[in-house]
């Protein structure tokens, strides 16, 4: 029988319940300690939970103990016990213990920083002549300024600066670093320039209909070919001008200079090729799709070291007689092709993320395939994939260490060479240098990965309105 509970329920709160502070287990220092350390060790409600709690407790103790020892050892090695200066220029003897003939107490084990400081220029630039270092520094400065301009959001003309960075800057860097004066004859350069200009004019006229309907159709293609000739020869021309700079062979480059050159060139050069491959892989034309897929899967399936071997050993075989690539160029070509395959996959991911409606909207407006790509799709896709590109760059930056195996002096190679310098031979020589190089790599790669995460968060926020 239903009992009337009418009067029983009616309830109105007359005064608010007090807002109380939380019990100790929730807040304050005890609360923080409980939540972050002890809570995970306290669950003994079942067998599984007990085992986990005990393991967490054991792990914590081990980590604190051994981790503490290692970290203290590292800091002691690198800072407290380290030798910082070598005022009498006695080189390795500054880091010798009394047993070896030096001044430090027996059993000393610490970093030998004068060694690193003495080798610093070598690590940064390799055997680049010291009087010409201003050229490297200038190139680097311009590059950093340009990059900062593009990244900093409030500045104007970011796109133009970015475009210049991708096109003019490499030429500038090449001239500054190698000295230009490449020896191409001005006669031939001028001839090809004129031919290129002529082709462009033909294209222009075709576009305006002066040469019949067939030409109008292909005018775009003709104009493109003409521009290729013009730009290529303009570059050749510029590279051939004698600016009075001392020519420096790439064999004299080394250290961070090489690492940055290989990584940056690899990424920048692989981007256009990667875009084309990504478009090819998504194309409706079976031949293009097949060729792109084969290319991408081939380069992604083999290790970079085999690519470098291939490039240094087989590239001379493929070229006609007399064409001689220097060692660095061979490695650059190998790195560029390798990186293009990975870049293609990243760009493909970006293209796939674009809503089909964008393609349809552009088609409805009457844009051609290339116009759609250039004006609508790629700008959006490339913004999506910036985190992916940065990640690929970080990977490439780490992979540049492999060029030391094919005889190119990158940062790691320079470090190895420094370690083998007998004038600084001490028991701590290798460890000091490895720590230094590891820290350099870590700062750079970690910084870039933080930036990539920052960009990812920013982009996903702006995308999800």
């Amino acid at each position: 029988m239903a009992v009337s509970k009418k009067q029983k329920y009616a309830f109105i709160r007359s005064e608010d319940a007090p807002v109380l502070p939380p019990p100790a287990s929730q807040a304050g220092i005890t609360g923080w300690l409980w939540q972050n350390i002890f809570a995970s060790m306290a669950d003994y409600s079942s067998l599984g939970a007990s085992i986990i709690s005990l393991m967490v407790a054991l792990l914590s103790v081990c980590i604190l103990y051994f981790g503490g020892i290692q970290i203290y050892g590292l800091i002691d090695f690198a800072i407290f016990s380290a030798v910082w200066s070598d005022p009498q220029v006695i080189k390795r003897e500054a880091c010798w213990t009394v047993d070896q003939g030096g001044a430090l107490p027996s059993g000393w084990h610490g970093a030998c920083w004068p060694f690193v400081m003495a080798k610093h220029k070598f690590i940064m630039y390799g055997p680049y002549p010291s009087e010409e270092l201003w050229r490297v520094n200038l190139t680097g400065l311009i590059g950093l300024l340009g990059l900062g301009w593009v990244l900093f959001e409030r500045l104007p003309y970011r796109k133009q600066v970015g475009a210049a960075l991708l096109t003019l800057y490499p030429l500038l860097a090449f001239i500054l670093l190698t000295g230009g004066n490449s020896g191409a004859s001005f006669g031939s350069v001028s001839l090809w320039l004129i031919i290129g200009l002529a082709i462009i004019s033909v294209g222009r006229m075709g576009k305006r209909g002066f040469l019949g309907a067939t030409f109008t159709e292909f005018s775009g293609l003709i104009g493109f070919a003409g521009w290729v000739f013009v730009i290529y020869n303009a570059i050749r021309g510029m590279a051939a001008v004698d600016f009075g700079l001392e020519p420096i062979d790439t064999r004299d480059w080394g250290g961070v200079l090489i690492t940055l050159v290989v990584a940056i060139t690899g990424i920048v050069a692989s981007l256009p090729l990667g875009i084309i491959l990504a478009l090819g892989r998504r194309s409706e034309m079976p031949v293009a799709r097949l060729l792109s897929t084969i290319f991408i899967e081939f380069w992604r399936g083999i290790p970079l070291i085999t690519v470098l071997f291939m490039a240094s050993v087989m590239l001379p075989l493929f070229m006609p007689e007399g064409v001689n690539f220097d060692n660095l160029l061979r490695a650059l070509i190998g790195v560029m092709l390798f990186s293009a395959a990975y870049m293609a996959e990243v760009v493909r991911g970006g293209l796939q993320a674009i809503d089909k409606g964008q393609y349809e909207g552009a088609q409805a407006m009457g844009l051609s395939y290339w116009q759609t790509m250039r004006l609508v799709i790629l700008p959006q896709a490339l913004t999506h994939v910036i985190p992916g590109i940065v990640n690929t760059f970080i990977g490439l930056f780490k992979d540049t260490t492999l060029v030391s195996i094919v005889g190119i002096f990158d940062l790691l190679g320079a470090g190895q060479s420094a370690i083998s310098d007998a004038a600084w031979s001490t028991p701590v020589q290798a460890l000091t240098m490895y720590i230094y190089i590891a820290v350099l790599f870590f700062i750079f790669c970690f910084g870039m990965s933080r930036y990539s995460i920052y960009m990812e968060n920013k982009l996903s926020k702006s995308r999800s309105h």
Partner: protein
Amino acid sequence: MASKAKTKSVISDEVMISMDNVNKWYGNFHVLRDINLTVHKGERIVICGPSGSGKSTLIRCLNRLEEHQAGTINVQGIEINNDLKNIDEIRRDVGMVFQHFNLFPHLTILENCTLAPIWVRKMPKADAEEIAMKYLTRVKIPEQAHKYPGQLSGGQQQRVAIARSLCMEPKLMLFDEPTSALDPEMIKEVLDTMVQLAEDGMSMICVTHEMGFARKVANRVIFMDEGQIVEQNEPEAFFNNPQSERTKLFLSQILDH
């Protein structure tokens, strides 16, 4: 029309839930303040209130999805604390339906429903499937049994979620904003299922904004604000004659659109 008539309620004297001086904190934030609540078997309770008032937290404390730091909660005489056996027993008899359904996407509808009976009540597969089909028929989608959740509409998924909880034959059902994530045309089918459930005698506590449902089914409406129970009453008295200022403000905001 029959839908306007209030459902009959048979409320016994047996106490299902008693909460005494329950307090809960998230870090420094006092999220549940001095909650005192008694629920009898057969009651249907609707809890409403502005977002952040602690309504979901309150019902989640009832099956230990959230822990309370002060006060006692007893469900069917069993106290909710860190004792795992108590928690297991309570969860077997209390079912919960979530705002976002939380169906297991890698299992079929039938497997979703038979998972708990097989692994908790240790039933043979055939018996579990029989019970599952019985409840799937009750929520009116037996033909979807071999499909996957991704193939169903939102309303269908929520009905499956209700059937899944019912397969454990709970004594009490908790609903945490069951229709808030549904498209308008699907809300009715889920509410009808819940009304049918109430008419069949299930005790339930429902956090919802659907005041029509409250009027029809609830025998008690509770208004919460800032972590405390501000007002509770029978539906007519609650909607027609709210006493507290805060209740009046809230009702004016949700009823006038």
